[in-house]
């Protein structure tokens, strides 16, 4: 009898432990290889997917799953000083994967490193247009002084990956970070392996090891999860996302739009720009060429972003209204017959060719003359960014913009300011609003951004905004994971649970 009880207890114990034993290695298949694993490049999505918050951590972290806003990571608390600078109190007892301790000097070095001209750190572009000086107060306290004063400096700190102060200025191939994982294998072109660290400061993640594989073809990625060769593919095509048990769609913070060049006739006339918007039947694309869950865009930033304006209404589909506007403009001598060229990037997003052809047909239907031109990345960039070519005709550039950071400041300057690299026009009221909103805090900030968004959409008619896109991922049934808006650039292994 006693033996039976013990046996029973043992069996119960083992089943219980398997119930809680969700832990082990997983395989993730990504669309493109990370050709660099340098922490200061982690803000580029194909690198961030592997490195961000897995190997290298940041001081703060944006909560994309809930509404906690900015959460502490390597910084426990922070406050703004009287002179406008921000003081961060760092977490203690944190070790890097090479054994060295984490302190304020590492933060200072990490910042100076990304701003250095001895390398090409991508993260530097978030700190453009301002001068920031880090000052070490003591081992676990650091001040960042910004000029002009940056209300969102703590948010910017979520983009600064922390490396040990001994890290050289040149790019490294063996990233050392405070994150829950360390890099244990990198076979270029084939795989990257991250293994969980025992001396991580936080909770032990369930995933003990992650192997990243790379397959450019979306059907192959989906097939791999289906056959069990991989456990997770953060990006598959909509056509393969047919299994509700494993496939999830998620808003992925990419916005598709047509950037209008206001400098060339007839696009310099607001009636023509409005006609462009009215001629397109956005609703018809949903569920056909664009996934069902996509949103119709009224701003360049998606809804969860601070300052997104719910009162701005999507342009209705009104081809007659568009025709009328064109007539009016024509009567005033505007050359509405000039052929307009839509420049699009091949394979920019799924169905880009068909979407552009459909838009072309809709525009031609109301009387526009539209040519399509598909180009590769390098050529597209030359049309999209200044300096623009002399002697060009009227051009619409189809582009996709990503902002998952929660604040419009990352987009507005570049896309709408007179000095912005991708801005197709110049309007002093817009410049002023951008400046004031960037310097404001809290509700005032949200109000100013809302005002700007409404002004751009209804008065200036700056672009033809189209869709906030949706991505699809496939997750094996043995994993418990839901992708978020940030998944494209940050795939936190600690968020993945094993069933």
């Amino acid at each position: 009898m006693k033996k039976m009880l013990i046996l029973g207890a043992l069996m119960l114990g083992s089943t219980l432990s398997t119930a809680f034993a969700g832990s082990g290695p997983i395989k993730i298949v990504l669309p493109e290889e990370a050709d660099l694993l340098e922490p200061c490049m982690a803000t580029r999505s194909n690198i961030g997917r592997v490195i961000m918050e897995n190997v290298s951590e940041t001081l703060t972290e944006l909560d994309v799953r809930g509404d906690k806003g900015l959460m502490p990571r390597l910084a426990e608390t922070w406050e703004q000083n009287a002179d406008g600078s921000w003081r961060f109190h760092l977490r203690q007892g944190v070790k890097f994967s090479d054994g060295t301790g984490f302190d304020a000097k590492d933060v200072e070095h990490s910042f100076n490193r990304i701003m250095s001209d001895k390398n090409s750190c991508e993260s530097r572009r978030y700190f453009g247009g301002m001068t920031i000086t880090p000052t070490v107060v003591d081992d676990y306290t650091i001040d960042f002084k910004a000029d002009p004063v940056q209300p969102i400096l703590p948010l910017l700190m979520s983009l600064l990956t922390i490396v040990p102060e001994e890290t050289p200025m040149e790019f490294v191939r063996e990233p050392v970070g405070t994150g829950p994982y360390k890099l244990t294998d990198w076979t270029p072109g084939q795989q990257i392996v991250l293994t969980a660290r025992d001396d991580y400061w936080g909770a032990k993640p369930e995933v003990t090891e992650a192997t990243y594989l790379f397959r450019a073809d979306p059907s192959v990625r989906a097939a791999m999860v289906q056959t069990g060769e991989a456990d997770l593919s953060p990006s598959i095509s909509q056509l393969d996302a047919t299994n509700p048990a494993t496939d999830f769609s998620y808003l992925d913070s990419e916005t598709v739009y047509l950037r209008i060049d206001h400098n060339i006739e007839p696009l310099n006339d607001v009636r023509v720009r409005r006609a462009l918007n009215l001629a397109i039947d956005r609703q018809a694309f949903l569920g056909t060429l664009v996934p069902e869950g996509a949103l119709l865009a009224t701003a360049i930033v998606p809804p969860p972003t601070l300052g997104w304006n719910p009162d701005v209404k999507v342009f209705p589909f009104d081809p007659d209204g568009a025709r009328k506007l064109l007539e009016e403009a024509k009567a005033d001598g505007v050359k509405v017959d000039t052929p307009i060229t839509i420049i699009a990037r091949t394979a920019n997003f799924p169905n880009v060719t068909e979407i552009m052809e459909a838009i072309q047909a809709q525009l031609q239907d109301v009387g526009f003359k539209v040519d399509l031109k598909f180009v590769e990345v390098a050529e597209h960039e030359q049309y999209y960014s200044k300096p623009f070519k002399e002697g060009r005709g009227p051009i619409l550039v189809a582009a996709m913009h990503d902002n998952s950071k929660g604040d419009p400041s990352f987009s507005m300057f570049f896309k709408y300011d007179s000095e912005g690299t991708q801005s197709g026009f110049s309007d002093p009221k817009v410049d002023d609003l951008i400046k004031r909103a960037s310097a404001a805090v809290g509700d005032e900030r949200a109000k100013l951004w809302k005002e700007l968004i409404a002004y751009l959409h209804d008065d200036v008619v700056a672009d033809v905004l189209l869709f906030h896109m949706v991505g699809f991922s496939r997750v094996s049934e043995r994993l418990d994971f839901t992708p978020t808006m940030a998944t494209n650039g940050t795939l936190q292994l600690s968020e993945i649970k094993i069933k």
Partner: protein
Amino acid sequence: MPLANPVFAGHNSNQGGGMIPPPGLSEGAMLKFVRKRAVASLISLVGLIVMVFFLSRLTGDPAALFLPVEASAEMKQQFRELHGLNDPLLVQFAHYVGDVLTGDLGESLRKARPALDVVLEAFTWTLWLAVITMSLVTGAAILVGSLAAFRAGGFFDRLSSIISLIGASVPDFWVAIVAIVVFSVNLAWLPTSGTGSLLHWILPIAVLFIRPFGIIVQVVRGSMIGALSSAYVKTARAKGVKSRSIIFVHALRNAMLPVITVIGDQAASLLNGAVIVETIFGFPGVGKLMIDSILQRDFNVVLAAILVTALAIFLMNLLIDLAYALLDPRIRH
């Protein structure tokens, strides 16, 4: 119709005036040939590098492609400074030549690693795929093509023509994706993609096999039909040579000239990389590397890749030219 027959050449009494060179390729002649060839190849290699160096730098700015669209003009300028792209072209070229002479083919702008390392890693995969595929293709295609030619117009000929023509014109990604769906997802006999085990090589090589096989079968068939009906084969038959295999072998030998040329052409195309197979099956070969580097304007990698593949192709063509002389001793270079 090829008439050369080494068996009879020596007995040819029409050698008046030394117009026909003595048969065979002597040791000395071969060495001289290879030496001349090496010099000429080196010159053309240099020419190739110079052309690609200057032309590729005219086509775009790697800074704009490495950095995000929101990067400032100053950041792009810094990037160019770091990589020496702001210097005048001739200065850049001088630096490059200096480095090459010490074995340094520059650093990849994208990957921050030596370009030569990147290329050699990729080229190893490509070389394996090319060698294995072309070996299989050569054997199979010569066999099928010759058999088809033997009974030209017959059932086997028609069947093999249809199959080989479909193979030569079918889009390769079709075959790849369908094969994955059938053999991997549905039947679970083979892995979908990747490079781990021997099984992983089966589908990629099968897909790569199809097009060259189709083409070479057709070339062999055409060439063999001509060779089989040539005068001396008829003569041999008339003289009583019963053995089909002897006739076969002689006809084959004389039909091979265009065949090995086309084999070389197909092999060159495989050495330049099989982009579709690499993309779909995840083999990190030189085809995808080349395309990515060209689109990203990673000049050093492009140059290094072209250098490596050019060397392989030049070498292959040399071997083919030597083979011409072996197959038909009357050919002199």
